[in-house]
């Protein structure tokens, strides 16, 4: 009894510290994407007309659809944390799997969106693109880099949530210890926020 108490009291856990560490990491992500938003804003300021013309190439419908998917996946991620807090392990795993499914759906849409553009000859360094106005080249350069980097974050986020699902199933993430799931959630919501800004800035400026 005594030894048990002893070991329990020496298990080091600092949930607030863990979450704070995650937030600090998210601020570095703010700088990463922030720098690109700075680039975007200056180039758009200089090439306003070209940006408007180039944005007509983008499919607003796919953009809307992907926004809805990502917002809904943020919802299921948040719900999975409430579920584990209420000790509903199965429900939490279900919500996590839904989130991963929607991340996958987002990427499939992105794949079709990009391949359609490739078929139209618009990809970095293509003859069609290089024959365009320099402002339009900048727009598509930023479009591929920013949505590409965001897509990479979606992949990383989905893998992270997958690991959390496994940990939940194995009983590592429980009603009393779910800070790992919370941190994965924070990352996922950041990916959502970045898309909230990317969507109007690229798809809705025509």
């Amino acid at each position, binding site marked *: 009894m005594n030894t048990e108490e002893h070991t329990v009291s020496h298990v080091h856990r600092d949930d607030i510290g863990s979450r704070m560490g995650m937030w600090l990491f998210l601020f570095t992500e703010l700088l990463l994407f922030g720098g690109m938003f*700075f680039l975007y804003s200056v180039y758009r300021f200089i090439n306003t007309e070209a940006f408007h013309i180039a944005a007509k190439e983008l499919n607003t419908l796919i953009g809307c659809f992907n926004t809805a998917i990502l*917002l809904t996946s943020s*919802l299921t991620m*948040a719900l999975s944390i*409430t579920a584990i*807090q209420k000790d509903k392990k199965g429900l939490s795993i279900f919500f996590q799997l839904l989130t991963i499914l929607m991340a996958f759906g987002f990427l499939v849409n992105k794949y079709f969106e990009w391949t359609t553009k490739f078929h139209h000859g618009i990809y970095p360094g293509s003859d069609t693109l290089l024959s365009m106005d320099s402002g339009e080249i900048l727009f598509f350069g930023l479009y591929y880099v920013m949505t590409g980097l965001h897509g990479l974050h979606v992949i990383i986020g989905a893998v992270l949530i997958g690991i959390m699902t496994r940990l939940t199933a194995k009983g590592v993430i429980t009603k009393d210890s779910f800070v790992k799931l*919370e941190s994965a959630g924070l990352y996922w919501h950041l990916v959502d*926020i970045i898309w*909230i800004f990317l969507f109007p800035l690229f798809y*809705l400026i025509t």
Partner: protein
Amino acid sequence: MHKDETHQHMHGYGIYILVWFGLLTLTGVTVAVAGINFGALTIATALFIAAVKSYLVLTIFMHLRIEQKAFKIFLLVALFFFVISIVLLFADYSFR
């Protein structure tokens, strides 16, 4: 035993679904408003709605509302420097 106080009042399912509805509605508003030409205000409107959506995600989905004060101060400091950077950048570019 002293439990992490933020977890004593956690969010229920309901508020998340409410926020989700709000986010989808605001997305609809952004798309609808994008079709109208307000001139220079068009981009401002889009950014304003995006900021409102981010606020909802940060406070509810990311639990900032029920986090300790330090988290909110952290975020405000980070955003403060972000805003300074963009203001200085445009103070430079606008007057070239």
